């Protein structure tokens, strides 16, 4: 279940959007004990200026993405294009499931949840 891309389609500034992954939807509910799903989220939005300047929770800093946004503002047809809206901070989840040997398994998966997005 994904949040409708706010701000008129994939528009709006780069930010994390809600995306809930239901294990039932993907047919894993028969062997995944818990959780029933999880908030994976995703990144979407423009990385022009000033979005590229606004690091989540931080002060604007000059970096590669800002330079590319500046270049794009000065010469939109330049090949480099705009920076990308990508995960800036991720967190793990743990899944409890049955494997094919009837073992009960708790497995830890890194980088499964998008907490913050940024322009890169």
């Amino acid at each position: 279940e994904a949040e409708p891309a706010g701000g008129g389609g994939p528009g709006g500034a780069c930010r994390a959007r809600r995306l809930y992954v239901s294990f039932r939807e993907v047919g894993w509910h028969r062997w995944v004990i818990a959780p029933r799903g999880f908030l994976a989220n995703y990144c979407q939005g423009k990385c022009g200026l000033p979005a590229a300047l606004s690091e989540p929770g931080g002060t604007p800093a000059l970096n590669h993405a800002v330079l590319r946004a500046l270049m794009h503002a000065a010469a939109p047809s330049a090949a480099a294009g705009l920076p990308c809206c990508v995960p800036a901070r991720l967190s793990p989840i743990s899944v409890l499931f049955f494997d094919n040997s009837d073992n009960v398994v708790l497995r830890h998966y890194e980088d499964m949840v998008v907490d913050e997005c940024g322009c890169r």
Partner: protein
Amino acid sequence: PAPPGPAAALLQALGFPDVPRGAPKSRPVPPVMWRLFRRRDHQEARAGPRRTPLGTTLRPCHVEELGVAGNIVRHVPDRGAAARPPEPASAAGQCPEWTVVFDLSAVEPAERPSQARLELRFAAAEATAGTAGGWELSVAPAGAGPGQVVLRQAVPALGMPVRAELLGAAWARNTSAPRSLRLTLALRPRAPAACASLAEASLLLVTLDPRLCHPLARPRR
């Protein structure tokens, strides 16, 4: 047979050699696995009433409750239970031995075991509950001669589960898990008393997959 294409890659990324069959009907989820899950489940910890205490951060690839490195915990049932003959009445004298079998074929060769905890539950019998002097548990590879005991452990009482660490005893540290682990167990009373009856045996196996976690010996930056 694993499905073709992206589904196979996805299952492999999840650590599944083939398509999961689905929950076995008769397999309840052991309480220890629920406890470990709730402790690890970040989102529940973040959003739910069971928040991790402020300031503590759960280390990746570490099982806090067991105090060992690892990103995979398996609760492995004893395959030998079905084949075990009904035990003679708990007569004193020569107590029975039990053979337990743990199927470890699901453990990948790259995984490094960090804990292999044998857990035994004995049938509650008033004749054995409060045996003076306690008991001695011995563990040997199945089929080995009498002098091949790899672990001896004093057991004060049988009311609680009896736990024994097998890593370093029944199998060498820093080696891959065997495909299956077959052990012969014996529990002898220190003072003449009725024999105990084994109700359930299981193995709690913690492994660390170095492909997904920093190697154990990695120096801190």
